[in-house]
């Protein structure tokens, strides 16, 4: 079976209608790159949904259909979803299409009950309906097998845990046995046994007529009745057990969502502490600023006083100049007076002529006039100096820069505070949906349910043993009766013989099939493992009853501990083993297969992958598989490289990046 193309619209993060075309021929690998949380697992789920009508989340739980519809689409009232896939087998081309729509009178769906699903199938263009559909689906991709071909990263990484975990192990074992063909014998065996019981009842009625066989016939009848009653009780118990299991599973899911509540509560507490801290810091920052502002007024008044002071200084200088000039004038007056008094020039000692005397008198008048009009005195200079001195005392402290810095810090803290307050509001809102006391209640209830289920399981075991014991007795009697010449004549006895033979064959066949298939899986998986591992010491794999795989070293000893990388390689080896040993090969779609591998192992896996199946689809993120280093290893096998792009937190799209990737 080969995937040709898948198209989806409004499926999980994929809003617009978009398609992915798969590979064909020797180029049998398609790579889809996508960062975490962008839509790789959703892509896998799209394939699952197209085939089987469900999508899974962590721990293999089904996602509610209403949550499959893209959020952006819902926001604008578009509640339809569609996924269609084109598939090809050796004999035909199929198209499967699955759609979800709101029920007719529902404008705004709130749960799965409000949605209607349609599924249509075409084979070579012709619609396939009714019971034929189930048959065709069985041929294409039996549901039980899908787990190992739609292989998500979680499964790869947790295979070992899943195999050991008591809740998941039976599911995994069952899924593996589906692939290996065991149900054909177990279910077949059950049905044959039912028919055998019916035939035995008929036989008992027939043989009651034969007196020689009356007592055995009676015994047979009694045993049949007892087995019948026991089986009815067993069926009731089984139903009760299944209900309890489902309840435990629900409670587990609730606990997980509640652990989110505990997480949120812790976050809230941390943020509230942080808020308190920030508030304290804000108060300190304000205090620091107020401290600085106490004396900042000096910085404010300084500039103007400086201006005034400069003015006063200029004025004083002018006065001082005048004072000096006056002193010169005074000296000149003194000289002239002396000359006039002596009638002799004091400078040159010559007797003054009358004309010179007259000139000197005039000169004296001028000088005295100038002095008298000089409006200055040392008083004014002294006054100015005092004022200047006072003003010089007014000094700023240069606080501007420090205040600016203090305010910058304060601003930053206020922004932090607002941001923290917003986050707190968000978390509070999210928490409103939880009730933290409830965690304990749910946990206690789950414990109770599991204990009850365990005790029912034990009872079921006892009852099964009881039924088996009685059945063996019944078979013995039946065989004895069938061999009896008188009895052999009856048709019912021959039917009992035939059914009995089939029953024994099918029953014995189950164990033989399991063993043989396990061996084949072990052989194929070991072969794969030896190609994938780089550890020289690791010789092969050994498989146990639950399909857990152990690594065996060259000395034949079990390797007890293994790295996450080794874990992944073991899981990949198992897939290959199942693919080769199983009923049906199909495409392998792997989500994050390289997560834990180092470069050497990654190289090995990359070289191995294209050989694992007719078609391989790898969903990886950039860190997992580097384009420059890793893609070239698959160069000639890659038909297409796609990329999942983020459009928003609620929308992604897949785009084709390369076709026939060569470099």
């Amino acid at each position, binding site marked *: 079976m080969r995937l040709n193309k898948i198209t989806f619209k409004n499926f999980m993060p994929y809003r617009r209608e978009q398609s992915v075309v798969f590979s064909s021929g020797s180029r049998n690998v398609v790579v889809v790159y996508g960062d975490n949380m962008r839509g790789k697992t959703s892509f896998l789920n799209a394939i699952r949904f197209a085939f089987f009508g469900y999508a899974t989340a962590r721990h293999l739980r089904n996602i509610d259909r209403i949550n499959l519809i893209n959020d952006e689409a819902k926001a604008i009232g578009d509640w339809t979803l569609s996924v269609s896939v084109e598939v090809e087998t050796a004999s035909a081309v199929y198209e499967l299409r699955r759609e979800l729509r709101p029920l007719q009178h529902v404008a705004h769906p709130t749960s799965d009950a409000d949605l209607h699903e349609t599924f249509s199938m075409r084979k070579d263009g012709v619609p396939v309906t009714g019971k034929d559909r189930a048959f065709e689906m*069985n041929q294409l991709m039996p549901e039980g097998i899908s787990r190992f071909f739609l292989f998500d990263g979680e499964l790869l990484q947790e295979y070992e845990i899943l195999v050991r975990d008591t809740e998941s192990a039976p599911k995994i074992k069952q899924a593996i046995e589906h692939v290996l*063909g065991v149900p054909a014998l177990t279910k077949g065996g059950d049905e044959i046994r039912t028919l055998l019981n019916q035939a035995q009842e008929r036989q008992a009625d027939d043989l009651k007529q034969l007196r020689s066989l009356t007592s055995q016939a009676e015994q047979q009848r009694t045993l049949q009745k007892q087995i019948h009653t026991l089986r009815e009780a067993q069926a009731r118990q089984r139903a009760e057990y299944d209900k309890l299991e489902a309840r435990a599973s629900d409670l587990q899911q609730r606990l997980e969502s509640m652990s989110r509540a505990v997480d949120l509560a812790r976050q809230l507490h941390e943020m509230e502490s942080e808020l308190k801290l920030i508030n304290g810091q804000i108060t300190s920052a304000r205090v620091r600023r107020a401290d600085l502002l106490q004396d900042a007024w000096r910085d404010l008044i300084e500039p103007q006083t400086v201006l005034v002071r400069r003015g006063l200084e200029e004025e004083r200088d002018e006065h001082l100049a005048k004072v000096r000039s006056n002193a010169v004038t005074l000296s000149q007056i003194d000289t002239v007076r002396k000359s006039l008094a002596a009638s002799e020039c004091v400078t040159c000692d010559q007797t003054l002529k009358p004309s010179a005397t007259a000139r000197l008198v005039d000169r004296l008048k001028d000088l005295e006039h100038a002095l008298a009009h000089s409006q200055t005195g040392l008083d004014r200079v002294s006054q100015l100096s005092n004022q200047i001195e006072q003003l010089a005392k007014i000094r700023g402290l240069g606080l501007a820069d420090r205040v600016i810095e203090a305010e910058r810090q304060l601003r930053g803290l206020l922004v932090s505070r607002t941001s923290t307050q917003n986050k707190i509001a968000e978390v509070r809102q999210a928490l409103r949906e939880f009730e933290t006391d409830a965690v304990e209640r749910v946990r206690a209830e789950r414990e109770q349910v599991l204990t009850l289920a365990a005790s029912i399981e034990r009872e079921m075991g006892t009852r099964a043993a009881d039924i088996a014991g009685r059945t063996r007795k019944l078979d013995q009697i039946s065989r004895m009766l069938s061999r009896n010449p008188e009895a052999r004549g009856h048709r019912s006895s021959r039917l009992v013989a035939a*059914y009995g*033979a089939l029953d024994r064959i099918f029953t014995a066949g189950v164990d033989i099939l399991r063993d043989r298939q396990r061996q084949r899986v072990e052989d194929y998986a070991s072969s794969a493992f030896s190609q994938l591992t780089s550890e020289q010491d690791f010789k092969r794999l050994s498989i146990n009853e639950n399909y857990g795989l152990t690594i065996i070293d060259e000395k034949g000893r079990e390797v007890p501990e293994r790295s996450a990388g080794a874990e992944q390689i073991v899981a990949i080896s198992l897939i290959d083993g199942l693919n080769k040993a199983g009923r049906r090969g199909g495409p392998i779609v792997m989500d994050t297969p390289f997560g834990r591998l180092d470069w050497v192992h990654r190289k090995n896996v990359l070289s191995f992958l294209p050989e694992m199946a007719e078609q391989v689809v790898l969903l990886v993120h950039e860190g997992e598989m580097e384009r420059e280093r890793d893609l070239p290893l698959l160069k000639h096998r890659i038909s297409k490289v796609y990329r999942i792009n983020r459009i928003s937190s609620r929308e992604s799209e897949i785009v084709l990046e390369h076709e026939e990737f060569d470099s």
Partner: protein
Amino acid sequence: MPEEVTADDIVLDILLTLRHEHQAPISDRLVREIYALQKLHQFEAERDKVILGTKRAVESEVDAGDEM
């Protein structure tokens, strides 16, 4: 691995071998027919078709044996 053996081949091989070993009073043909039914409907939820088919196949063989 050069083997082209499928899982179906293996199941059938086991059943036929057991039939022979148990010297069962049924034919190989019946075993094949019943297995074919199981194979085709392995995953169906409603098993009526299978049970009915099995019943018919066994009865027709037993009745054919009567006629011989």
